[in-house]
């Protein structure tokens, strides 16, 4: 378990990468904002978030000091180098998922889902139209069925105002 780490991580930590620094700083920023944001609250409401915030900030300082000095370097990049996808493939996959989540409220459920399923299977999966049809029916059938069972009302998007059926089943 640890050998992969030993073999691949230490060389990568001659210096702390900027990505790690930015992420660490963002985490610190969030903790700081949480403390500041709680200051104006009534005493009973701010006691817990401020106590936890200060303790977490202390842990964050410890983490940053040890990591950036290199003492805990191997742990900081453990996931980063060993298995997490990065680069263009990861950006592309995020693009598909975020694109669908953005299109959903804009176009309505049905058009956004059809576009997403067909587009993804053809462009990423490189599958045949038959597979697109089978998976598409399965996906929309299961999702629609679950949506009906749970009585989900999809957001009324821009298109939904014009074509109401686009947002519902």
């Amino acid at each position, binding site marked *: 378990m640890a050998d992969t780490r030993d073999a691949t991580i230490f060389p990568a930590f001659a210096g702390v990468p900027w990505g790690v620094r930015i992420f660490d700083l963002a985490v610190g920023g969030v*903790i700081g904002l949480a403390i500041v*944001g*709680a200051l104006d609250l009534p005493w*009973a409401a701010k006691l*817990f978030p401020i106590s936890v915030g200060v303790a977490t900030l202390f842990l964050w300082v410890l983490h940053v000091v040890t990591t950036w000095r290199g003492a805990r370097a191997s742990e900081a990049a453990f*996931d*980063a180098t060993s298995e997490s996808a990065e680069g263009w493939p990861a950006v592309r996959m995020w693009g598909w998922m975020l694109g669908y*989540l953005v299109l*959903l409220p804009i176009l309505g459920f049905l058009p956004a889902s059809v576009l997403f399923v067909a587009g993804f299977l053809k462009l990423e999966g490189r599958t045949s139209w038959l597979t697109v049809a089978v998976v598409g029916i399965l996906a929309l059938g299961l999702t629609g069925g679950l949506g009906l069972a749970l009585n989900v009302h999809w957001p009324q998007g821009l298109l939904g105002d014009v074509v109401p059926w686009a947002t519902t089943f």
Partner: protein
Amino acid sequence: MIEAALAAFFMVLEPTHLMFLCLGVFVGLAVGFLPGLGGIVGMALLLPVAFQLDPQTGIAMLIGVAAVITTSDTFPSVLMGIPGSAGSQATIIDGYAMAQKGQAARALSAAFIASMFGGVIGALALTLSLPIARPLVLSFATPELLMMSILGLCMIGVLSGDAPLKGLLVAGLGLLVGTIGAAEVAPAYRYDMGYDYLFDGLPLVVVSLGLFALPEFVDLLARGGAIAKRGAALGGGWLEGARDIVRHWWLVLRHSLMGVGVGMVPGLGSAIVDWMNYGYLVQTAKHRGELGRGDVRGVIAPESANNAKEGGALIPTLLFGVPGSAGMALLLSAFVVFGIQPGPRMLDTNLSLVFVIIWSLALANILGTIACLVFIRPIARLTTIPFSTMFPVIFLLVTVGAFQATRHVGDLIVLAAFGLLGWLMKRHGFPRAPLLIGFILSPLVERNLWITTQRYGLEWLERPGVITIGLLTVILVVVGSRRRKPIVRHEEFPETTETTEAPAEAGKERSHG
């Protein structure tokens, strides 16, 4: 107690109950054989459905999911050398080696039957723990429960992955995220930024799906379709696998009990249960034989343990309200949604539900094993379908699951935001399970802290129970922080070159919790 157990047994056998338990088992099996997706994703997917049901049925369905994931995750481990979930990493070493020798069927049947016995022994251990733990648990007041929550948080932080400091830091972040929305003990809204959506806090289902499902999707998809090309032939030897279980019954019993023990400690859970048991097997085996090169004992030990640990993890979850793992934290939050307060009072007020959970756990393990054995060929074939083909179906289901939380566009934004956060955490080696557990425990800890300080002042710190748990926390944190050495060293298995992916995958799965 016996009446409650019998009443619960008949309740479990009711057709509606059984149907939803089977649905849970089905989803658990499906999620188990999809590499990378663990119990949290499966449970989060079914949470929306569970909330539409009565508490007994809904919780039984969730138990069904959690119980069988460690049964079906053996398929990818044995057939492809890829862990189906966090609990099946060690199975790869001998299971995949057996498949390479044409003994996949024997490895799978031994694994399934061992899993079944492990799960049933876990349920039995949970049952036996009730009369023993009952007087102790009922003596707990709010200060002790608060300390138990702190102990759970510290353990989860310390034991999650190789980075204890990061684990604690993330648990703190989870507590902070949990404070968003209406304050527990005062008429005020915190961090709502003027959005109505945030008044009730962030929806648990959306946070858990974002943190755990989306990052796995990206990594599985970006890694490409290699999964589909590596399926091994099943071969014969089904009965041989069953005979192996009879031959090594002692191993099944010993490692099931070890699994229960590991499951009971918050934070240990799925990430190491298989390695710990495999390591123990290697160290104690009189004859090493083919261990590491395709020995059925190397399949039986981790598979017995990883199913048994669910029974163990339920003990602190039900009795103290302290989740043993991220999956148990989801279950805990389901209790809260159903209006059931987990913890000591459960044994008084909801004893029948406790027994419904126990029966469901045992039954789900049996049903899961039968399903795996009966449908082995089609399931084995399904594992060879490229993930990119299944992804649109799963992602649409995840979206429905997330959107139904409050039926607000904010759900989709939170899903995306926590998805990105989870992915960045994974990339930067931050364990994600402590964040979810901190998030879920946040209101509980705040409420208990408030009640404790208001009722006892500072005297609560002098209570013997509080001091004992406090000392235990310090000891466990110190010991846990020093636990750096890997349980199984890869050099011990130089022959299994085909399984060199296992250690790398182990790191990936570790953060599943």
